[in-house]
């Protein structure tokens, strides 16, 4: 009879090629602009679009969002959920879920994932300007920004109650009909408590959080690469890929070259003007399109000229949005119906629209406002967003045609845009809907949101409407509140104006059985890699 030891000894004697043949799954390399902006992979710290791209491969939520097909929630680590009351949701946990450290997921892990240990408690008084302190580096206490992120993600979260081994209850302090939707965000991912406890420090944990996704983190080197390996004990079955390597290649030309040279199988964040050139190569294809993000222009209503809402309204009518979509995006995106997405379901306001392009109306509004040609500054970053600078030139020409004197001021970073300084006028922004409810996008325009915090725009009516939207449990009331938010923010007292839906494009080797999602997330699970996935 063969013992385990003799089997292992025998395996050690096998020639290397024989061992290699044991796993025939392909390994892929994905060239990305950046893997993470914070240098960590912990969702409580990493909040960027680029981080969202890699997270679904190693971390999972109780309720997942199907960004690739339905744009609807689907069971994740919870197989079912039901409302106990307007403040409480009960979830039934999936059985047999194993974390990457081999431990079985329990209700205690869920409770841990939403506890102070991970969310952070009160902001630690860890002030130490540029000064290295060994205690901080080795601490298991999350940095203060992690607790701020958790508060923003779950503003009225109270606690997780462990009902039994397979059941947990989420308790909110306030009524919230979006609690299930909020759980689909990366902030709602579940991690191994044992994994956290085994990590020597919070930083080391944040570099390699132990989740339950189809791939485990094998190596992460900030600014270099992230290697994920198949988690063969994954509850959804053996992952289709042996390993995935994300490599940071900041330059677009270098990413395309890596793809053409065969050094990468995917190259992310392709600008639209590169797509034709890439598609001319018979070995390559481009996938992607519209995502859950909308490009906007933001107004500072405290600028002397923009203080008059009629001027802002005039600006919203002097933008040829379709021309931007056609000329700069080759028609590969669309003008949205205001700041909303169809995956908002019954909250979607189908009869709402972006302001029509109407120069006569813009001129009429400017006359009514008594505008005399005063300069309006436009603080602009150089292509932080795809096509940002050429898009700005289209905007300025449209405004000029309406009689507006808008002056572009090039800036280097966001601090120079959002800081409080005299002469702040117009700037660009984008808005991501993290889950299928208008609260996800509209909360920016309420207290605590970016426009309020940076002092660009406030409106008491909007504050009231947002409060209703966030806490009411009556569908009709919420729908009316959302409508009111759109009216205030886009027409009565414009905080922003939508430009176009954002889009992201991925170049890849032709024939790879993978499909791009309608978000920044890349899905390499069995659900999206294989013959059944097709190619969009």
């Amino acid at each position, binding site marked *: 009879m063969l013992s385990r030891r003799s089997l292992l000894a025998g395996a050690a004697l096998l020639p290397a090629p024989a061992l290699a043949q044991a796993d025939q799954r392909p390994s892929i390399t994905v060239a990305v602009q950046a893997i993470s902006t914070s*240098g960590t992979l912990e969702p409580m710290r990493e909040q960027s679009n680029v981080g969202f791209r890699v997270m679904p491969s190693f971390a999972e939520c109780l309720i997942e969002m199907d960004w690739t097909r339905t744009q609807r929630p689907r069971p994740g680590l919870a197989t079912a959920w039901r409302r106990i009351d307007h403040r409480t949701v009960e979830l039934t946990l999936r059985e047999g879920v194993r974390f990457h450290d081999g431990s079985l997921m329990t209700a205690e892990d869920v409770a841990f994932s939403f506890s102070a240990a991970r969310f952070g408690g009160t902001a630690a008084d860890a002030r*130490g300007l540029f000064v290295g302190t060994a205690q901080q580096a080795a601490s298991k206490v999350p940095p203060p920004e992690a607790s701020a992120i958790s508060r923003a993600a779950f503003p009225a979260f109270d606690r997780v109650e462990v009902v039994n081994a397979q059941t947990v209850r989420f308790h909110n302090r306030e009524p919230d009909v979006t609690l299930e939707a909020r759980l689909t965000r990366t902030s709602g991912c579940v991690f191994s408590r044992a994994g956290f406890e085994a990590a020597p420090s919070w930083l080391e944990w944040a570099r390699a959080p132990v989740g339950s996704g189809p791939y485990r983190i094998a190596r992460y080197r900030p*600014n270099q690469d992230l290697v994920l390996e198949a988690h063969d004990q994954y509850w959804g079955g053996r992952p289709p890929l042996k390993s995935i390597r994300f490599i940071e290649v900041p330059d677009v030309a270098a990413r395309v070259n*890596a793809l053409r*040279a065969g050094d990468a199988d995917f190259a992310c964040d392709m600008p639209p003007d590169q797509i034709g050139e890439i598609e001319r190569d018979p070995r390559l294809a481009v996938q992607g399109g519209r995502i859950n993000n909308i490009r906007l222009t933001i107004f500072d209503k405290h600028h002397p000229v923009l203080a008059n809402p009629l001027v802002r309204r005039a600006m919203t009518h002097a933008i040829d949005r379709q021309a931007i979509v056609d000329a700069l995006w080759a028609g590969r995106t669309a003008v949205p119906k205001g700041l909303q997405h169809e995956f908002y379901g019954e909250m979607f306001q189908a009869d709402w629209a972006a302001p029509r392009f109407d120069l006569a109306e813009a001129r009429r509004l400017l006359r009514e406002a008594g505008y005399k040609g005063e300069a309006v500054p436009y603080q602009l970053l150089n292509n932080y967003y795809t096509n940002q600078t050429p898009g700005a030139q289209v905007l300025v020409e449209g405004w000029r045609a309406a009689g507006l004197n808008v002056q572009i001021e090039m800036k280097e*970073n966001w601090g120079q845009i959002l800081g409080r300084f005299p002469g702040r006028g117009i700037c660009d922004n984008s808005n991501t809907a993290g889950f299928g409810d208008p609260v996800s996008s509209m909360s920016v325009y309420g207290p605590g949101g970016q426009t309020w915090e940076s002092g660009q725009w406030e409106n008491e009516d909007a504050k009231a409407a947002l409060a209703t939207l966030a806490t009411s449990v009556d569908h009709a009331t919420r729908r009316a509140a959302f409508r009111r938010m759109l009216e205030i923010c886009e027409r009565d007292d414009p905080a922003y104006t939508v430009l176009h839906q954002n889009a992201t494009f991925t170049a890849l080797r032709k024939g790879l059985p993978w499909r791009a999602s309608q978000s920044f997330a890349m899905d390499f699970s069995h659900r999206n890699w294989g013959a059944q996935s097709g190619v969009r």
Partner: protein
Amino acid sequence: MLRFLTLRLVRAVLTIALVVTFAFVVLRLSGDPALLIMSVDAPPEAVAAFRKAWGLDEPLWQQYLSYFGAIASGDLGRSMRDGRDAIVLVGERIPATLALTVPALLIKLGLGIPAGVYAALHRNSWADRLVMFLAVAGFTVPSFVLGLLLVLVFAVQLGWLPSGGQDSWRHAVLPVITMGVGGAAVLARFTRSAMLEVLGQSYIRTASAKGVPWAQVVRGHALPNAAIPTVTIIGFMVGSLIAGAVVVESVFSWPGVGRLLVVAVANRDLAVVQCILLLVAATMVTANLVVDLLYGALDPRLRRGGSR
């Protein structure tokens, strides 16, 4: 000698203090690290918490004093983005950068000096013109253009070498050539000019007139005297070993100090930028000191306290 060294040391400390102040003023006044590191998509509350945790909400003068005080006490600080000590972060990247810059320096020396000497000794010949044509082409083509061209030819078209990354020695070939070619071109130009100037001197004519074999004249009189300006250029090249590959590392996705510097500047990660600048300043100052000492070895008049 002691006075010379003390003076140099004082100047070096002053240079480093100026570099540190300059880095602080430029980086701190031109961007908010909290917004850059947390990303514009992060909740404002999180950005504010980050700002508070790192003391970025304190008056600027107070931040400067803390910053300078920490450096003066030998603490180069922690990376706001990475959380680890800046010196550890930079130290991890130095071997990768040296893996490019040292071989590139050898190419510069091995190609540039012989080519310059040969061109000078065969002035106005076809060989001289060819060397100068290649040298002008070499230093006028920006390194990012040359790098992308090499990738297109050797990685994309021929498939002989990888287009980027740092997985094996093969990944270093194209970036080393990219850096080496430009530097060799500069060195060839300088060496040729220096040699031509020396070859026109009266002592060269005298030595030849006395019947000294030409090879000996070149080895014994021309080369040592032409070495002084060339050593100055080599000093600069040695001084830039640490951070001289910023562009090339970006083009080839090579994870060295140069890429770290780009990311740190973009994020206003002060501790890391300051650490790299200090290292660069220290390397430059040391290289200049060595060059000054070499002048003395090459030119006996300097050893005796005379002036050049």
